[in-house]
């Protein structure tokens, strides 16, 4: 690992995005528009909007960063730039942390906009600090980046890589407690939901929704999300091989 190579990688990824303003606009605006949509869907039930809205603030960054990273790293693998970089003195950690920094920064902006709109314009009623919401959103984004990096190793084309989104992300959304409390699920599913990281992301958001202080449960939840992100990042690093057939 080398700080200047890591930062150069992060700057390069941001520069690539800088040439693609439409992607940036979509990344930043779509979550806000979906929250507005949700606000009017729950026109008659603002309590439901509070709980689902807070959960979605945790899910958006994970999903978008998953998609962006999986496609960006797949392109890196198929265009030959990854092979070239790995024939140069670039550490695998430099590449991965570089991506995580760049997309993490983007996720912070995305989450800040979405959280700000939810709280100040859509009257999302949370007991805790918006900063804690932002922290969970950032960790979710890192988890999404890590998962995207990891699955890109198992896809040979863009067609395949986008299919990992329903395969890896949708089950987590179904089981994270957004649609039904996790405790009310069939026990096997509840057990599965206990080992899926998005469940903890949503639990963390719910803790902020209901408690004014950072509770012990909250600390455990964000610990699980952060730990999962680091674990998957390490797995992702293992998929980067300097020598390939």
């Amino acid at each position, binding site marked *: 690992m080398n700080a200047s190579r890591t930062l150069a990688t992060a700057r390069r990824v941001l520069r690539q995005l800088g040439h693609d303003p439409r992607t940036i606009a979509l990344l930043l605006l779509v979550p806000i528009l979906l929250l507005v949509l949700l606000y009017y869907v729950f026109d008659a039930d603002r309590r439901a909007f509070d709980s689902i809205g807070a959960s979605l603030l945790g899910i958006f960054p994970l999903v978008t960063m998953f998609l962006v990273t999986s496609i960006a790293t797949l392109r890196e693998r198929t265009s030959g*730039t990854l092979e070239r970089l790995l024939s140069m*003195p670039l550490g695998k950690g430099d590449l991965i942390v570089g991506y995580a920094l760049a997309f993490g920064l983007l996720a912070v902006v995305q989450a800040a906009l979405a959280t700000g709109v939810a709280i100040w314009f859509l009257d999302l009623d949370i007991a805790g600090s918006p900063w804690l919401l932002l922290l969970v959103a950032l960790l979710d984004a890192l988890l999404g980046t890590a998962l995207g990096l990891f699955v890109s190793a198992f896809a040979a084309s863009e067609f395949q890589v986008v299919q990992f989104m329903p395969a890896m992300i949708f089950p987590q959304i179904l089981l994270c407690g957004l649609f039904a409390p996790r405790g009310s699920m069939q026990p096997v599913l509840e057990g599965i939901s206990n080992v899926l990281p998005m469940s903890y992301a949503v639990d963390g958001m719910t803790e902020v929704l209901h408690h004014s202080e950072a509770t012990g449960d909250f600390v455990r939840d964000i610990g699980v999300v952060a730990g999962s992100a680091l674990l998957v990042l390490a797995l992702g690093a293992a998929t980067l091989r300097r020598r390939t057939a």
Partner: protein
Amino acid sequence: MNKPPPQPPPDPAEPTGPGPDPAVHARGLTVVRGTRRVLDALSFDVAPGTVTGLLGPSGSGKSTLIRAIVGTQAKVTGTLDVLGSPAGSAGLRSRVGYVTQAPSVYGDLSARQNLDYYAAVLGIPRSRRAAAVTQALTDVDLTSHADDLAGNLSGGQASRVSLAVALLGAPELLVLDEPTVGLDPVLRRDLWDLFHRLAAHGTTLLISSHVMDEADRCAHLLLVRDGTLLAADTPRALREQTGSDTVEEAFLALVDAARAAEDSTP
């Protein structure tokens, strides 16, 4: 594990003449992909400060050999030393420049931004980076397109951006996989002039091509067919040995001879 054995096995392709330490030293180099031997017991040396051509038809194993030399090929056995260290050693990563067949640059960055990033990865200090990038762009004659997105450049221009990346940091060994494919004759001549200038300053170049008329621009040739080394010699010696006028004819004569040998010993 890639240390040379004390007594290298005798090999018909053993190049003659001692001279300085070779830039690339291969003995019994074999690469297996799946169940197929893509390269079969290759032995050759590449002399430092020369332009060596790696010639052979498509699918003969040229790219695999190049990837083995730069250390990105898996399942390499035998001896393969590059600049005195086993191929793929960490210390070689900034001393060997590598250009893949397809331009490996970021299409959504400008030529200059591509070079700037790769220069940072190569560890060129920030203060010297801009000058190194400009020099590389000048070498490949792309200064007028420096700020165009690589994805918007023509095929030949994009492959020159890729070549410019390999020139960054003045590597001691440049390994180029078909760098002149799809370039017009003027540009091809200019690039070969550049390659000879680099060699004159001590850089070793290994350049693959399936265009035989480029062979005469090389000081030394490696002729590869079906993963085996047909010949390793100077263009002139190859022509004389086969009684041909051109390297292309010499190559065809060698291929025919190899086929005949295969047919007689099934």
